[in-house]
């Protein structure tokens, strides 16, 4: 596809999702209490979208990922929360 075709097919959808992200961040900032590791990871991931860096989606996914290789001692829950608590 040409850039024009990609934009024709996906621009409005991407714009909609970007506005939702902006609204989410405004909502978090308006709310009381402290940010947690999820917001920190979210902001790290957002920074990956700036400029002409390649593989943006891969870099964003890595920003949320547990980079370690040691199995945890015990699974105490079944679900994932979307971000690695000890991300730096």
């Amino acid at each position, binding site marked *: *596809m040409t850039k024009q*075709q990609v934009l024709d*097919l*996906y621009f409005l959808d991407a714009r909609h999702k970007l506005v939702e992200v902006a609204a989410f961040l405004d909502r978090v900032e308006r709310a009381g209490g402290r940010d947690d590791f999820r917001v920190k990871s979210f902001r790290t991931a957002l920074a990956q979208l700036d400029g002409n860096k390649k*593989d943006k*989606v*891969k870099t964003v*996914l*890595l920003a*949320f*990922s*547990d*980079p*370690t*290789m040691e*199995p*945890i*001692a*015990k*699974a*105490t*829950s*079944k*679900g*994932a*929360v*979307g*971000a*690695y608590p000890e991300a730096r």
Partner: protein
Amino acid sequence: MVSRTTDDYERLALAGCAAVCEPAFWAGFDRSSVDGFHDYFCQLTEHEPKRAAKFGLKHFCWLCINSKEAEDVKLAAEVIALIPKFLNRPNVLGIGEIGLNKNSRNELRVLEMQVELAARHNQMILVHTPHLEDKLKGTRLILDVLKSDQRIRPERVIIDHVEEHTVEMVLDCGMWAGMTLYPETKCTPARAIDILETYGRERIWMNSACDWGVSDPLAVPKTALEMKKRGHVAAAIEQVVFSNPKSFLIQSGKFKI
């Protein structure tokens, strides 16, 4: 599809689906005993094929104890001991979906036990990779287990739920990569097609999540439509939604459509 209504079988048939391949997975709650799994395996191998047949659909399945119930190693061992007597049933394709969920030591131990089961019985393997922040680590750990067993032939293994940060390492191992289309996590149709355009169409296919959560059995045909919108030719679409799955599954010796 034990978590879905009969309407979904009808919708799949109307959309041109030829067969359903259902992995053994978590029921949304933990089963309290090995008997619960026995009944589940009977459901997958006796009842669901009949439900699907009412709409002209062939039904195949994979058997295992899933990673979300693998923290209890004793129960897992009992369930694994149950599986061999089901393996000669005509719709059983292999062992799956085994894998990891939270990447714990017990989950890893149970994964190793099920890889051993597959190797001992010359079964194909379907692998579930963890969700979200756990996927990268889990995929690496799973690949290490599979690569360390010389009896496992990579072309008879599919690693499911790949995303952009894991697909390359799976394909590099010579295994098949599955993209699960899911409305909230995993891959959207648009991203799945991006992955195909980036990594090619060899040893890769996609599947619709049809579980107890928010999921869409028609995700594959919707992705085929999205591919058409992007200008992919009919042969390319047919390869990823039909020929590739068929080429992989036919290795089981039981998959016939």
